């Protein structure tokens, strides 16, 4: 295997590898990258993958029409036919969730995408340009940041004629970019004065090349973390918005199910399945995102990892003020 790669590279003689080679290398690199990730991130990615899959194919497998309306007047507990029970009007909660996953996930992803793009543009620009541009952009992002977003969203979305995913995602993006921008600005500021950036300028590189090829690749971790954080924020906020009724009630999302549960007095009726399943879905989806960010954090800051070394020392816990361990019968581990 090893040899083959070597031969390949010599054949190519430093030329750009052909596309299939590139693709397989990318895939192999991706697989290797995944393996190197901390366990938490792996778990998070797998859970998120399941949700993405459901978002794509879920509606096809929904056993009932989520809008189905029967004459029944009581919510029905879970049974063989209705795994997650039914709503007061007889809607199948399981089907509603299979259909609603898509809307919730899409809203999160769109918001994450727009907000992260804004964050990268504004944060990097502020950090790289410095001076008055930085002052202005920073002031702007900080003002948006301290604004309580939820009431503002309620007010803005209240005025909009339609409150589907896309308008909600756009307004959410407009309010959720500043956190990422702030982090990226700080990182850009510290990178900008690093010698390798000065050196690239010294070589004669143009500013756009420096930003794209020298600065941004060093911020991939932060950009990813900012994206994941925004998706989480968007999902939680959109669910909260739907829950209080700022939503398009003709479609289905996790928040919509919860809205109907609340307005149908599910708690008072003891119909726990009506809100526990969608609520749990939000929590698990959110947890997968938190775990991914956890993993990204540990990846970039090894200090945060729970120390495996401790475990091998046979100690349960350790305080930083403890004296250096003395282990006289120590046998070196062989790798």
């Amino acid at each position, binding site marked *: 295997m090893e040899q083959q790669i070597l031969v390949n590279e010599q054949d190519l003689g430093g030329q750009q590898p052909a596309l299939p080679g590139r693709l397989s290398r990318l895939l192999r690199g991706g697989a290797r990258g995944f393996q190197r990730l901390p366990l938490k991130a792996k778990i998070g990615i797998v859970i998120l993958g399941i949700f993405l899959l459901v978002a794509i194919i879920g509606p096809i497998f929904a056993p009932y029409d989520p809008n189905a309306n029967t004459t029944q007047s009581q919510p029905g507990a879970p049974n063989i036919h209705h795994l997650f029970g039914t709503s007061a009007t007889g809607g199948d909660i399981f089907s509603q969730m299979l259909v609603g996953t898509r809307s919730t996930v899409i809203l999160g992803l769109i918001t994450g995408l727009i907000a992260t793009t804004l964050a990268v543009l504004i944060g990097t620009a502020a950090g790289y340009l410095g001076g008055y541009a930085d002052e202005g952009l920073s002031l702007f992002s900080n003002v948006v940041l301290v604004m309580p977003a939820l009431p503002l969203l309620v007010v803005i979305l209240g005025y909009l004629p339609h409150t589907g995913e896309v308008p909600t995602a756009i307004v959410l993006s407009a309010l959720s970019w500043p956190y990422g921008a702030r982090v990226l600005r700080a990182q850009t500021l510290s990178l900008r004065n690093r*010698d*390798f950036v000065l*050196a690239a300028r*010294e*070589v004669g590189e143009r500013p756009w090349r420096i930003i794209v090829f020298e600065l941004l690749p060093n911020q991939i971790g932060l950009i990813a973390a900012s994206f994941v954080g925004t998706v989480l924020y968007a999902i939680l906020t959109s669910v909260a918005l739907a829950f209080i009724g700022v939503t398009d009630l003709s479609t289905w999302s996790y928040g919509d199910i919860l809205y109907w549960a609340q307005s149908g007095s599910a708690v008072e009726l003891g119909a726990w399945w009506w809100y526990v399943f969608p609520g749990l879905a939000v929590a698990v989806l959110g947890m997968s995102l938190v775990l991914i960010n956890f993993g990204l954090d540990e990846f970039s800051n090894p200090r945060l990892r729970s120390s495996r070394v401790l475990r091998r*020392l046979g100690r349960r816990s350790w305080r930083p003020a403890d004296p*250096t361990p003395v282990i006289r019968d120590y046998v070196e581990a062989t790798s």
Partner: protein
Amino acid sequence: MSTAPERDLAVTQATEGGGVQAGTGPAGPVLDIKGLCINYRSELGDVRAVRDVDLELHPGQIVGLAGESGCGKSTLAYGAVRLLRPPAIVTAGNVVYHGRRLSGVHPNGFDVLGATDKGLQEIRWREIAIVFQSAMNSLNPVLRVEDQIIDGIRAHMPGSYQQAHARARELIEMVGIKPERLRAYPHELSGGMRQRVMIAMALAINPEVVIMDEPTTGLDVVVQKEILQQVLKLKDELGFAVLFITHDLSLLLEIADRVVVMYAGQVVESAPTSEVRTGGTHPYTRGLLGSFPKLHGPRVKLTGIPGTPPDLRGAAAGCPFQPRCFFAQDACAQVDMKLAQVVGAVTGHVSACPLVKPGQPLPDSAQALARPAGIEQQDIASGELVLSGVNLRKDYGGGRRGVVVTAVKDVNLELRRGRVVALVGESGSGKSTIAKLLSGQERRTGGSILLDGKEIEPSNRRQFRAYKSEVQMVFQDPFASLNPLHTVRYHLQRALAVHAPRTGRQPSQAEVERLLDQVRLNPVAKFRDAYPHELSGGQRQRVSIARALAAEPRVLLADEPVSMLDVSIRLEILDLIAELRSRYQLAILYITHDIASARYFADEILVMHHGEIVERGPAEELVLNPTHPYTQLLIASSPDPDTFASEDSAPVAASAEEGLNREVASE
């Protein structure tokens, strides 16, 4: 863990007599380290950072611990007082503290490795205090200086807060700081003052042992000299013993009673300072001594120590220094390093190399080692003028706040083909600002820059690329100046591509390899596709230089190109720059704080102080006969083994005091 008599320094030390200045107390060390082994656990196998080390510190003695970074000297010191954290563990050895004050409680000495957390608090600070390396980070930023001194006192001494406060005043005055500064927060103090505070803090409870870990690294030579003199004075008054850790062997030759040299986690030589001053025995010690350019005597080529230290994972067979050793023989790969009394030397002078005798001349292989041409001093007035700065001036600040700081004031300099001009000064003298003005990173406030006699505006965007193809720069920190995400090839290809825009094609592999060959990164195939983190500091700096050469410039600006590198590697890089200047007739501006290295290969030296050039002249002449008082102070403050005798000469002390006042005043 051998206990062979020749390894037992206590025996040899006691009989040594005159070799130790202050060995007045009862025979026997105050800190006794025996067979200490420290490992850093890691996934890829343990790093054996300290291997079976013996070390003794006698009352009132200064023992210097020297070696390159990664040799285990700091690990040894911190491990001995159990301040290292996992993954570090102590795997073998004994550390016994024999303090006079503890002799009643612990008649056989205090067993440091056997002590509990509570037990260690008994000896920490009260008996063994530490002055840490980075004064910047070793003070708690949110506590006033006085609180940090007082809490150490109150943790160990009975008495009221008022008494502790009075003691703090006393201490701070002792190290030459006004008592009012006790109310200051650390960020309000200069680097030198912070280090003085650390020293005052360490001496708070009259400890018997003070460990000093690179206490003056990062400080200017003048401040360094002042602080060291203060330490020596206090040591004489208070009688503590010092374990002084530094990479700068020449510093130890000035202050230490005994020098212990470490390599690859082991002690390779331990000797009274006088023995080391006359040349040392172990090839590594000799290599270290040969790495420092001198300020006196003839301007000579130096050998340095080629190569890099070994990986410390796993057990080493044979002498670890063998691959870098001029004296190496086949047998070296088999023998284990064992310290043994050096034949014909003072008792107590031990070396781990059984092959090399004191005073044995370097073998022909080392003599013949192709030392580059280029360190001979050239006539500074001849040579074609390429780049010159006329009345350069740079002000910072202004605007609404109104405070203007002039960093550079009326500086004139001329860079000629094949000539090296050294710009020497302390931090804040404005020397780096000149590099920024000449490279176009910053716009000057006044004066003009002439390229081939024509005025040019380097920071002008339209002229920038053309200017860059003539004037290139090498950065100080090789660990920061390469993008960690790009390979060596990428860095060089970009530099080539930027300066060959007409063809529009990707620079060929051959061009990249030619650049690598120019900076002696051979075999090129090994370095071509490497990432920066796979290279050593010296190799990275070579890549940096290769990148600067890609544009085929006529002028090279080198801003402290070796100050971040280990002493043993500095010469290689300076030699490379010297070689390039004679091969390509480059005009070079060498910016440094180290006047001895400027003397090593510059043709002209400009001394900068407070933004102005206070003295200039041909390198040899200026160093040997400095006329300006500041130049004299700078030279007198630079560590130089040869000037040991004149250390306490009057003018230096007077100037040092003046320097101290200046620093206090500037706060």
